[in-house]
Structures are given as C-alpha cells and as structure tokens.
C-alpha cells in the first residue's frame, strides 16, 4: 500500500511538473494572421507589445483606452496563435477612424513569471484616399521608425507616463509587409513589455 501511494505521489509530481508546458507565455509566433489556420503566407502584422502582470485582454483594452484616449474599436479581425492554437483577437482600440493609431489584442493565460499576459499588434496607419483609394495602410518609415514602431513607442510613452513600467526585448520579427498603397512596412524587431495593474479604469 505504501509502495502504491509512493507511485501515485511520484506520478502526480511528474504530472504537475509537466503542467507548466501549458501555463507559460508563448511567443513562438510573433505575427498576426489574416485567418486561422495561421501560416507564414497569411501573416499581416508583427506583434510588438506584450502586456504583463495583470495583462488580461480586458484590462489591456481598458488601460490602453484610459491612458491613450484610443476609444474607437473599429477595424478588421485578425488572428493570433499560442500554445498550438489559433484564435481571433479579443479586442482592439484605435485613436480614430481616419489616419490613426490602432492596436489589436489577444490574451493568454497566466505565466509563472510574467503573470497574466496579452499580446498586441500596434501600428500607426494612414487612411489612403489618393491616388488610389485603398483604406488604411501602415506607415512605411520615418524619423520615429515605421508605423509599427511609432505605435509601440506611443503606447510605451503614454503608459509609462501614467506610472506603468516597461522594458524592451529583441524579437527580430522584422519581416516587411506590403501595404495597400504599395509601400512596405516592417517592425524594427523590438517588443515592448508593459506592466498593467489590477484595477481597471
């Protein structure tokens, strides 16, 4: 009986030790996708922001909205992947409906080190009406970097000025994406990790 209990105990410990494989932050795929299933051919935007600590998708949406004033929620649906699954965004925020900042978010479950996390794909995009009307196109580049870099840095600027801490991690997801105006835009490869607090706004 004692031997049986020991076997059960060891097996349980082994099972618990294996559990974190499903309970960690997964950033293996660092792009959004047009639809599921995700593939390299249907990538759309680089993921360039991770909300941590209390980074549930609802808190991320609330605190982004509160600190940036990005209250619009219009935009197309894109998909994120994690832990081998693929799913649509949970929410999005934008600074308006014309040329604007825009961020799409999808939450993950809690991570032992990072806490609750949500991944985000942020960009600044122009509403292109001339010479060929095509809609929203991410800025190719500029003194502040591409539209992807500008929006990431704007989020960092606005949230850190409100007391949130942040740091940057090299992700290398610099693939260029053709935009509807014919330009190409790419991330500079850095992801911002921004801590959120428990209280929503």
């Amino acid at each position: 009986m004692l031997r049986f209990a020991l076997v059960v105990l060891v097996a349980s410990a082994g099972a618990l030790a294996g559990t974190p494989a499903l309970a960690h932050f997964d950033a293996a795929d660092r792009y959004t996708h047009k639809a599921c299933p995700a593939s390299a051919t249907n990538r759309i935007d680089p993921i360039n922001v991770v909300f941590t600590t209390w980074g549930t998708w609802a808190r991320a949406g609330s605190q982004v909205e509160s600190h940036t004033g990005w209250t619009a929620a219009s935009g197309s649906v894109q998909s994120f992947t994690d832990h081998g699954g693929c799913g649509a965004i949970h929410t999005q925020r934008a600074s308006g409906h014309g040329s604007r900042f825009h961020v799409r978010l999808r939450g993950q479950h809690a991570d032992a080190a990072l806490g609750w996390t949500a991944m985000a794909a942020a960009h600044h995009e122009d509403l292109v009406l001339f010479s060929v009307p095509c809609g929203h196109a991410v800025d190719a580049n500029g003194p502040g970097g591409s539209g992807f870099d500008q929006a990431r840095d704007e989020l960092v600027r606005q949230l850190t000025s409100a007391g949130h801490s942040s740091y940057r991690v090299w992700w290398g997801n610099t693939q260029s994406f053709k935009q509807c105006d014919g330009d190409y835009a790419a991330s500079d490869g850095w992801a911002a990790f921004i801590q959120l607090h428990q209280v929503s706004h």
Partner: protein
Amino acid sequence: MVAPLVTRPWVMAVVMLALGLALVGSVSAGGGQPSAALQSFPLYNAGERVDGLPLVAVLRREDTADFASFVYGDCVAGDDAGCAPPAEIQIWPACGRNLGLYDGVQPAGAPAEQIMVRGVPALLFDDGTRLELETGRLTAVVFADTRARTLRIAAALRAVDGTVSPGRPLPQPTRGEGRGGAVDC
C-alpha cells in the same frame, strides 16, 4: 530618413548600384562622422530572380532600424491588412543585429535551430521561415514562406559587388567567435 522604395526594374538597378556604393563606400552618418561599420557593409541579395520569384522591390531603412531589403515576389494587400511577400532578404550591419542578440533571451517559444550555412553560423526561427546568418561584418536575414525556400534562398545569396558567388563559402564573421560579442556601429 525616408527610405527609397523602388518597384520598377530600371529604377531598381540604379538604386541597387547607389545602395551598393553608399554602403560599401565611405558613408557619413551621425552628424557627418564616417561610420566605420557602414564603410565595410557590403550588400548581398539573390539576384534578379530566385526560386521562381522576381525581385520586386529594394528598400532602405535608416531610422529605428538600419537595413537594406530585397523583396522577392508579390502579394495582394487590402484595407487595414498588409500582406507578406513570398520572400525577403534583409542585410543589417552586424553591430545592429547579430546572433548574439539571442544569447540569454528566454525563447518564449520554440528555440532557434543552430545550423551552418555555407560555412558560417546561422539560426533558423519560426519553423524555418526565418534564417539569420553572420558573414563578414553583416547579418543576412532571409524570410520565406517555407523552410525549403528559405534554405534555397540562403544558398543563392551573392555579394552585389560580385566578390561572393551563389553556393560559394561565405566570408567568416569578423566578430571573433561568430556568436555574441559586440561591434561598435
């Protein structure tokens, strides 16, 4: 700095030549001071066509990122939705991007696969759809839609100035051990 964006073949040839001269030659950067890194920053690409894909654009970023890019093949972008070209080669000065950036970083996903490509160290990421290799004082980054295509493009890399042909061994990294370390930009 606004990058040149070129999509017409005849303009592309002129820009490629200009980019090559600018990057291989003496370039002033940072308040007019010559950049030692850029002075020895040769360009690599895969010619005017690789793996059935034509060269459709040559890009240059010089803001929060510093690289030249060669885009192969086309895709159709829509409103609020860019698209991923089938293949792209980015050339970065190794001082700004190198394999050492991945040392000590928590992978938060599948670890990179370490391989050798034409005699130099390389890392494969994202199920083989991104390859980074160090050669000389630069880092070449290949994006493609499949692992097989990524490796075929890596095999086709050539120096724009003609000093390295496709399939030939690439110059060894000049950062010493090939991984880690730092080079001043």
